């Protein structure tokens, strides 16, 4: 059984500075919510409030209607919180997993069975009798997660659960996590600064920047319609380009067409484009005039740095004709891999030198 989480008018202050402000956020029972944000955005602060480790400076945080500041140990025992550092105790792996069960007065025999099941589900059953602190980082993360899952919590809070793992280990870890959660109705809140992790397990994603909620939506909505430039950057758009939307809907940079149209009102806007949404066409075709400044090989593709009307990063298939550094071309954006964000929506991108006709465009490093 999961639990419903509710945050209302929550403010958290640290050192006299407001580090988190959430006016209203509900998480349904059994929902998987991801919190995406850069370092220092307030993600861990939010998790600590939900875990009843901290109390909010003002406002209310409830789990199934019970305030976390009043719920005490009974409420904390419905919530499992896997912190960013695995925080394993100086005893065996098995004892680490059994300890929270013992605190919940689970009979000894059942404790052993639950610990074994949880460890095996995370593929660390063979490490049960090893000293926990002698394990590798990846193994410790798995044990920490097994410890959280063994108590069959109503709410599972995961703070960057794969932090410190290499790409391959992260992928395997998330595959196992996904499987471990598949047959559970647990409410899951996971925080991450990596879009691929945040979007993977989520029914909904909350984007936090500077302690404020910038957008809440499904992974599809976030991918297709980021609310502002900071959200687009976090979601993983490689290019953020200052553009102008003409009254006829054409999206241009310095009168050069981008290949996009936008039905919204005319005016300055930002276009977010994935690198593989930047197409290079011949000089004689409509598009942004660019010069190829660098070509670097990547796995299965080439990364092409462009400057000119816009500083862009393009990603071309490895089997396409190799662009030559110094050559000129035109760049257009694939509408299915781009999003137009009107400036009025509160984007945090650097303002253009000319507010009416922006000129500058920047590729994210």
């Amino acid at each position, binding site marked *: 059984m999961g639990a419903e989480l509710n945050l209302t008018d929550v403010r958290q202050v640290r050192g006299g500075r407001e580090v988190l402000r959430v006016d209203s956020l509900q998480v349904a029972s059994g929902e998987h919510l991801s919190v995406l944000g850069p370092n220092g955005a307030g993600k861990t602060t939010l998790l*600590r409030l939900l*875990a*009843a*480790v901290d109390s909010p400076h003002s406002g209310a945080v409830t789990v199934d209607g019970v305030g976390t500041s009043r719920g005490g*140990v009974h409420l*904390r*025992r419905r*919530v*499992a*919180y896997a*912190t960013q*550092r695995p*925080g394993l*105790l*100086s*005893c*065996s792996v098995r*004892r680490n997993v059994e*300890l*929270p069960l013992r*605190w*919940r007065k689970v009979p000894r025999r059942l404790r052993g069975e639950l610990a074994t099941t949880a460890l095996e589900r995370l593929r660390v059953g063979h490490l049960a009798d090893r*000293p926990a602190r002698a394990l590798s980082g990846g193994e410790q993360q798995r044990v920490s997660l097994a*410890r959280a899952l063994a*108590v069959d919590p109503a709410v599972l*809070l995961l703070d960057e659960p794969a932090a410190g793992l290499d790409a391959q280990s992260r992928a395997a870890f998330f595959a196992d996590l996904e499987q471990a959660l598949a047959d559970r109705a647990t409410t899951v809140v996971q925080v991450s600064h990596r879009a691929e992790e945040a979007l993977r397990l989520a029914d909904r994603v909350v984007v936090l920047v500077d302690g404020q909620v910038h957008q809440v939506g499904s992974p599809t909505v976030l991918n297709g319609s980021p609310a502002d430039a900071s959200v687009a950057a976090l979601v993983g758009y490689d290019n953020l380009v200052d553009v102008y939307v003409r009254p006829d809907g054409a999206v241009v940079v310095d009168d050069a067409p981008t290949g996009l149209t936008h039905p919204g009102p005319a005016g300055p806007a930002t276009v977010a484009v994935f690198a593989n949404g930047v197409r290079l066409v011949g000089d004689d075709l409509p598009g942004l005039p660019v010069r190829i400044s660098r070509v670097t090989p990547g796995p299965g593709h080439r990364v092409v740095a462009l400057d000119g009307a816009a500083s862009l990063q393009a990603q071309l298939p490895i089997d396409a004709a190799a662009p030559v550094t110094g050559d000129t071309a035109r760049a257009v954006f694939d509408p299915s891999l781009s999003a137009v964000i009107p400036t009025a929506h509160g984007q945090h991108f650097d303002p253009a030198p000319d507010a009416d006709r922006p000129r500058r465009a920047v590729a994210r490093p």
Partner: protein
Amino acid sequence: MVEPLYEVLARSAFVSLSATLVASVLGIGLGTMLALARLPGRRLLTAVVNTGMAVPTVVVGLAVALVLWRSGPLGELGLIYTVQGMIVAQVLIATPLITGITMAAIQLLPAELPDQLRSLGANRAQLVLRLWIEARLPLLAAAMAGFGHAISEVGAATIVGGNIHGHTQVMTTAIVESVGQGEFGVAIFYGAVLLGLAFLINGLLVSVQQRGTSWARS
């Protein structure tokens, strides 16, 4: 009448071990509280504890004697020139040391550990117990330091106990007395025996410490 050595030795061990036991309970409790709790006056209390670690034992003995003296505030208890009075003095000597080391040991644990334990569902008693287990090595070191401090001190034992033969004489006061009488050979012998006793008791504590390590790992 000369008291047999083993009786003096047994009394020394009894006084210092009793004092260490009481001081460990007080010091580990107080040190944990100072390390974890956000109390008003915590800094002042910490400064007092740190000062207590450096107070000469003879000054502690003087203070205890004044309190336990027959005309003193606790004179009615009749503890002056008794083994119990000596234990009280040694508790006061060992407690600040054990408190200070405990506080440092708890504070040296990973900062997120208390929150981690809370989030795993530990109540307050379970949390503190687990912190002690995690800090078991320095905590046993604290107890050993407390015992070392207690068994080696002479000032408080002399003032509060009075070095009464067959009653309150302990190894350190016997050594001082022998030196005063010019019996250096006896004093050296007593010193060697005292060292042996300290070695034996610390050896036992180390073995408990190591067994505690393997137990906690299992």
